[in-house]
């Protein structure tokens, strides 16, 4: 019984939880969400640019996109965050006077997720039937408008589940920015748990952090499944049996 009690105390120390949870709500959760959402948005923009470069007819653009993607996808996230945070931090400090590593954390996460999202978008855009571009061009749209109005929207729709998965990964990877040494008010869920765990020598704050992450990621996972099912089966709509029925049927008077 002692062992069970000891385990319960290690992982579920209610006093420590009570101490850490309000702080997670007040500081950790908003910071995690800001890191994930802002770098998600910037990463999506980078990804779209990379995808369009990747399918461009310009060989130089394709080459740049390829090299960028290979490097950023090939590195461990922790290394990218450290290198960008510590490597470019001093330059940014000199240019802007800001000493906060927060923008560097967002930059690192954005650049990283941009590489993944670029590949997601590219595969989606390339999966759109060639006849779509042809039909749009035949109507008189140029290449750019055809991509923007016809091809890209269909490509994105197909990869929405993969895109949300990438956003889930981003929420998790945002925990790595603790390595840049954030100010107290900038700390996200993981670091707030880690701080108290280090002070108390007890793991309960980590468990609290875990619950916060799961509360963010599990609904998103189910959201992915929902979109996926929706994309597979489409919106339910009544279907006329054939042309003849439409002419004489109740659809005809509309």
């Amino acid at each position, binding site marked *: 019984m002692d062992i069970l009690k000891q385990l319960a105390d290690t992982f579920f120390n209610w006093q420590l939880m009570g101490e850490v949870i309000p702080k997670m709500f007040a500081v950790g959760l908003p910071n995690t969400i800001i890191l994930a959402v802002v770098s998600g948005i910037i990463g999506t923009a980078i990804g779209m640019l990379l995808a369009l470069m990747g399918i461009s007819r310009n060989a130089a653009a394709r080459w740049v996109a390829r090299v960028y993607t290979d490097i950023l996808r090939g590195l461990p996230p922790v290394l990218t965050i450290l290198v960008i945070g510590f490597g470019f931090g001093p330059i940014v400090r000199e240019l802007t006077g800001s000493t906060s590593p927060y923008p560097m954390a967002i930059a690192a996460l954005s650049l990283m997720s941009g590489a993944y999202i670029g590949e997601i978008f590219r595969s989606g855009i390339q999966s759109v*039937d060639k006849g*779509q571009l*042809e*039909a749009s061009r*035949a*109507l008189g749209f140029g290449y750019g408008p055809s991509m923007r109005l016809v091809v890209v929207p*269909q490509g994105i729709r197909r990869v929405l589940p993969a895109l949300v998965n990438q956003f889930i990964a981003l929420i998790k990877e945002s925990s790595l920015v603790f390595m840049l040494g954030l100010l107290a008010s900038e700390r996200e869920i993981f670091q707030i748990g880690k701080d108290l765990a280090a002070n108390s020598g007890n793991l309960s704050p980590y468990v609290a952090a875990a619950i916060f992450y799961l509360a963010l990621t599990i609904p998103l996972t189910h959201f992915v499944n929902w979109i996926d099912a929706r994309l597979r089966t489409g919106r339910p*709509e009544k279907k006329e049996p*054939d042309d003849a029925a439409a002419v004489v049927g109740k*659809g005809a008077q509309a």
Partner: protein
Amino acid sequence: MSEFASGSLSARNIHLSFGSNHVLRGIDLHVPQGTTASVIGPSGSGKSTLLRVMNRLIEPDQGDILLDGRSVLKDNPDELRRRIGMVFQQFNLFPHKTVVENVSLALRKLRKLSKEEARSEALEQLDLVGLRHKADSRPANLSGGQQQRVAIARALAMKPEVMFFDEATSALDPELVKGVLALMADLAKGGMTMVVVTHEMGFSRNVSDAVTFMDAGVVVESGPPEQLFTEPKTDRLKGFLSDVL
């Protein structure tokens, strides 16, 4: 007394190669204003490619294309394509847009009509093909025949001077072919200038004013349908007709 502001179309000595593959080897085709030319021939003879060259989806290596007697090779190809409607074998409707949006997209973005104007014009076009009641459906919820009629409405909405049909009925179930062919025949009667690449010999014979038989990238024989179908001169056309009829 034509309903359409259609024009004549000519292709002169068109050559096109993909690498070492010489797909079109000096094609001449003249379609007078308000007439329908059908292009027949075995698969791989270059018929569909010829259509794509004539609206410059593919640029020819050599030759000239004239719309209303004027060369269009120096024009902006996007503007040229607004004057030529095209209907595809696989319909190629935009699946992420509703039926009426498929028809109104080019009206809004290219002819710069307001949303309401574009919609009401698109609904009129859908009325002509008998599908106004499907305006707010998605293409995926329509039968193949209905989808192809929407595709025709989409092309007509731009008020083209010429219409291209690229095997427009080949992907349709047999019972749906008739409706689409009837619509095409109506357009032909209404005075639209049309180039119809088809395997429907009945349509070619009964509706078109001229028939062009292509094989291996050249025009083997061309003339009025009666002449080609009843007295084919070349062995290649005789062989083709005995295979398909």
